[in-house]
């Protein structure tokens, strides 16, 4: 049943690429998002300015254009660097800017901006009195962050995170356009070769729905966990 005219194994491999890509990009986006949120809440103009430019640019330009810019431009950028090294220092290095790395970097970079907005809103929603109470207890800044701000922030951030994750998951389909063999690319290739698009594209659509449903379930569990102590909302 999973043979799909011989394309079954490659499709499953492609699905693996999709999931890996999505999860790694998510991790990068979460890290970037925390940095961005912190920078945006900073009172100093420089981090604030950088974070604002970053989020504005990302939200103003299509994902695919950014992806092509970073992927194709990244290659030329790497090339320029190693040319400088070669001509001025006679060092010949080989730097591989592969499609997977480019995909993770671009998607993580794009969603870092969205995550930043989500985290910022969530941090602001944490009751200041709680933080003051923590300080009054003699907790250090990092302990306040770990024990009070972060867990409470997560409660407010989860709906936004879940939403961002769903969009991110669908965005991974775009890497097929820049040449990464995810499941969409395998399906498109198979459709062309066999002239039977439905046989391959419908299972891929179902796979996306499946991943989305599983993630919805996970997020619901997480939400339950972080809602502990706040009653039914």
């Amino acid at each position, binding site marked *: 049943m999973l043979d799909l005219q*011989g394309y079954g194994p490659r499709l499953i491999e492609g699905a693996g690429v999709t999931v890996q890509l999505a999860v790694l990009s998510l991790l990068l986006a979460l890290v970037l998002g925390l940095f961005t949120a912190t920078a945006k809440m900073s009172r100093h103009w420089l981090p604030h300015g950088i974070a604002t430019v970053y989020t504005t640019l990302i939200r103003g330009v299509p994902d695919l254009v950014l992806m092509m810019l*970073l*992927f*194709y*431009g*990244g*290659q*030329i*950028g*790497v*090339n*320029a*660097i*190693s040319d400088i090294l*070669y001509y001025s220092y006679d*060092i*010949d*290095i*080989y*730097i*591989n*800017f*592969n499609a997977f*790395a*480019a995909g993770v*970097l671009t998607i993580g970079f794009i969603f870092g901006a969205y995550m930043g907005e989500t985290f910022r809103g969530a941090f602001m929603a944490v009751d200041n009195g709680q933080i003051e109470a923590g300080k009054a207890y003699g907790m250090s800044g990092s302990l306040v962050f770990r024990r009070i701000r972060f867990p409470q922030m997560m409660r407010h951030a989860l709906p936004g995170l879940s939403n961002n994750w769903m969009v991110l998951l669908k965005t991974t389909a775009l890497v097929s356009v*820049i*040449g990464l063999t995810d499941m969409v690319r395998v399906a498109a*290739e198979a459709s*062309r*070769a066999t*002239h039977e698009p439905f046989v391959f594209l419908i299972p891929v659509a179902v796979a996306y729905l499946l991943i989305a449903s599983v993630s919805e379930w996970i997020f619901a569990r997480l939400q339950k966990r972080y809602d502990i102590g706040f009653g039914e909302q």
Partner: protein
Amino acid sequence: MKKLLSVSLIGLAVAAASSAQARDYDHVRIGVDVPYVPMEYRTAEGDLTGFDIDLGNAMCEEIGVTCEWIEQEWDGIIPGLLSRNYDAVMSSMTINDERRQQVLFSEPYITMPSAWFAASDLDIDEANEETLEGLTIGVQRGTLQDNYVTDNYGSVADISRYSTADDMVLDMDAQRLDIVFLDFPIGQSTLVENEDGDYVIVGEQITEPKEYFGDGFGIAFRQRDEALAEKFNEALATLKEDGTYDEIYTRYFGEE
């Protein structure tokens, strides 16, 4: 701007670097865009084959290096060479002046004309401004055929640009395209010999003007790798002399 960007990309580059090593070419990585039947394609079992592949492997053997084929979309095949994703490109690439500015070419190893292909019921004998007027022409994006059609017929016809030759064949079968402009052997094997459709070559095979159609297919190297290019040139000469070249040629194109 470029400088600034390239500097800011250092971070990305380092993150993406899977290995960094000096290169002395006992191992040559060759970029190739598949499928492009019969020049480079995969068999049903997934093995890479075709005229370029066989000739390339024979050359590597002659030079005494191991060769690895790396697949790359046509769109990014020259940037990929320049950024060292591979050391050479052997992928039915026509030698022309525009590309000479970017890369160093070997001597041409084969000359391939381009040609127009259409369904037999399109009923035109020759492609020119009058017969093409209002038609939808398919080309592969960024190829010399794309440049030729865009510059000469862009004002009279609609041009659809595709990432792969396979996409074009699919849209020919779907009757979305009226006519395509391709390397002759590729059109011959994917359209004329295609059992599903009824396609014919329109007019003569085209090799002029040289500013578009260049001087045949060459292997592309980075500008500075003159020594490597020279080795391949010598190997090509040897293979032509000892008959290996003719044998590979006959394998894919039959007797001349």
